[in-house]
């Protein structure tokens, strides 16, 4: 029986090359209250793969087949999309939603398909010994929270003793993620943390900002997404909260978040895990091979914007992992299991980013079985309203591993115990 299966498998493989493709599902959301962020990300994600198809004929000679599925940031639709695409031979999922990620973590583990949640999802998935097929490099929420605090420490000569820091967060799994780290950091550095929840979708924040006006915190950190960001920045401008003391996380720092507030948003700070430079050579190639030939996923107007760059960066990391997997297994038409090995062996260096036409787009990092989270570095950028661009004001800042590593350990082991997982490297 076993030989028969092997024979059939061998026969299918032998017959396959003609039809071989690398299937990349894109669980996007171009509708609903979060579409403003979903559209540029998905455009960047798809356009990069289209570029590889158009310019290089795919990766390692195998073309990429993109399957787009609209989730509207809704978990039920996300599950439907997952079920609809998983049997197509999907290599990696990137749902761009923490809610859908939580849904898919157990499902992808059961089906053996890797998932890459770049800077979102479940933070403790950084522990690859427990979460074998979940990756959240180059940085996760707890890294982000710590980077923000490290930046503030730097601004205040190393001490936040007695400072008031308010966290304005999206009242969902996504927004609640940084609380645990910020509490630990508050205990370590002696600042006072107050938490202000904003309910989905975040159009109504008057009471939150009235509270901020009364409390007068020294700094406001925001974990927002979608329409919530624009409203928060507008409200902050209305109460004349100083923008240089207002830091959004990397999902609250795109052009469309700040532009509605006009000049009032000038000086708004946010984190970013990638640099923003519309003049990168890779964008020129996208303009030439993808947008020029009418193959673009969207209208092509977002090229080089913050979230387009991040979507493209996500695709770039996935493509690099595919290359790595092809190299490790010596096979061009890889499976999801091989993809997982490729992701776990991924290394990003300055030279490689230069070769790819995107010098310095992200931090230098490498992934291993023990660490699926990468370096955790992020930078701080400032909105220049007159020019309409985000300008980096720091280099990549490292998070406080001393605080984060034990938290990741604790949370991931609790998950392992709950779900009967034996931590270990394959």
């Amino acid at each position, binding site marked *: 029986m076993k030989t028969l299966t092997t024979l059939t498998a061998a026969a299918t493989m032998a017959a396959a090359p003609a039809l071989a493709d690398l299937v990349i599902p894109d669980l996007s959301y171009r*509708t609903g209250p979060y579409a403003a962020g979903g559209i540029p990300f998905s455009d960047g994600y798809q356009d990069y793969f289209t570029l590889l198809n158009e310019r290089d004929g795919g990766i390692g000679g195998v073309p990429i087949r993109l399957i787009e*599925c609209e989730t*509207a940031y809704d*978990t039920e639709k996300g599950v439907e999309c997952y*079920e609809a695409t998983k049997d197509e031979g999907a290599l990696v999922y990137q749902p761009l939603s923490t809610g859908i990620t*939580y849904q898919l973590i157990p499902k992808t583990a059961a089906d053996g398909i890797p998932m890459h949640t770049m800077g979102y999802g479940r933070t403790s998935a950084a522990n690859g010994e427990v979460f074998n097929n979940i990756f959240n490099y180059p940085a996760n929420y707890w890294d982000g929270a710590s980077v923000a605090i490290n930046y503030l420490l730097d601004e205040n000569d190393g001490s936040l003793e007695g400072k008031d820091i308010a966290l304005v967060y999206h009242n*969902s*799994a996504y927004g609640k993620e940084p*609380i645990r780290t910020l509490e630990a950091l508050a205990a370590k550095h002696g600042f006072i943390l107050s938490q202000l929840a904003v309910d989905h979708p975040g159009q109504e924040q008057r009471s939150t900002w009235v509270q901020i006006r009364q409390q007068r915190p020294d700094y406001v950190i925001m974990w927002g997404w979608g329409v919530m960001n624009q409203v928060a920045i507008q409200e902050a401008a209305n109460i004349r909260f100083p923008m240089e003391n207002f830091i959004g996380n990397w999902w609250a720092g795109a052009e469309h978040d700040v532009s509605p507030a006009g000049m009032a948003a000038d000086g708004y700070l946010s984190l970013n895990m990638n640099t923003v430079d519309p003049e990168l050579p890779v964008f020129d190639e996208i303009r030439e091979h993808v947008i020029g030939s009418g193959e673009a996923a969207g209208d092509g107007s977002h090229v080089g914007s913050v979230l387009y760059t991040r979507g493209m960066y996500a695709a770039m990391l996935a493509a690099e992992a595919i290359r790595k997997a092809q190299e490790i297994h010596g096979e061009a038409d890889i499976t999801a299991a091989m993809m997982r090995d490729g992701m776990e062996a991924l290394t990003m260096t300055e030279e490689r980013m230069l070769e790819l036409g995107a010098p310095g787009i992200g931090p230098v990092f490498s992934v291993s079985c023990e660490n699926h989270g990468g370096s955790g570095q992020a930078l701080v950028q400032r909105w220049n309203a007159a020019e309409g661009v985000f300008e980096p004001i720091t280099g990549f800042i490292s998070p406080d591993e001393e605080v984060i590593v034990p938290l990741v350990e604790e949370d991931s082991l609790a998950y392992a115990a709950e779900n009967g997982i034996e931590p270990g490297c394959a």
Partner: protein
Amino acid sequence: MLYREAGDFKTSYAADAQTFPLAFDRWGYWVLLALAALVVPFVVNDYWANALLIPFLIYAIAALGLNILTGYCGQVSLGTGGFMAVGAYSSYKLMTAFPWMDMVSVTLLSGLVTAGVGLLFGLPSLRIKGFYLAVATLAAQFFLVWLFNRVPWFYNYSASGQISAPERELFGLVLTGPNAASAVQYLFCLAIVIALAWFARNLTRGTVGRKWMAIRDMDIAAEIIGVNPLRAKLSAFAISSFFVGISGALFFTIYLGAVEVNSAFGIQKSFLILFMVIIGGLGSIFGSFAGAAFLVLLPVVLKLVGVDLLGWPTTIVAHLQLVVVGGLIIFFLVVEPHGLAQLWRLTKEKLRLWPFPH
């Protein structure tokens, strides 16, 4: 021709009062059940089960529950999402606090807990009616969602505020969690749906159901002929919430496996289920199923046709979906205000005379 009562003689009161008086209907019902229970589980794949059949069955339970309250007893409720959340969170607390408990008990107990909560929020219905009651139940919706977000005890103090269903077995088969076979999950839901639909059908044509309908049609008249409004209204709230609670529990344990109260049980869920009841037909068991099928299947069918068949961009299809579903709701309300159930009833009337209408 096929569909007629000629020759179908009833010789007892029981036979005369049965749910399906026509032999053709009766056979159809049994064939459908046999197909659903004996054939579907063996041919169904993950996509069909997880994206279509399981949500359909679970929403059908919720629609049955709301139909009891709104369709039969005439009490408008916008708190369905909140009551589903009660079912989901009680099953989570039961599953984590008593790991030995089997899933049938967990599901039924979650229903009972929800029935208790529903009873509590049903109390205002004795004083207020119509739109005012709708507002009171709306308060229940917002309060319950806020509660499950606010009190960490309900989600066992997890960092993200999400709850996720641990793995449980029934008769040695994995029923919850990612390793469960979709056929097993489907059969579990199907069994519960059949039991609850049978219960609802027999409840609504007995004394209890007649009292509800009397209250619905005119509460003062009902009171004069001896219906106790307190008991009738509260029993409707309790039983309706029992159904809704069970559907919430299954929604969490079987269908999604992990939920977040805001996105899964928000106000839009209450409206969705109200639409199911209105489109399906108020005061009809069949209508609850038809409404659930319509609103669960239609978006998926539109997506399959639009994206997979015609190759349209996903955005266009997503927007078109809203337009088509909205348009159809208006169409149904204008053309057939009594819903799909009435449409089905009319079809049957016509079929009885076919092919020789007078």
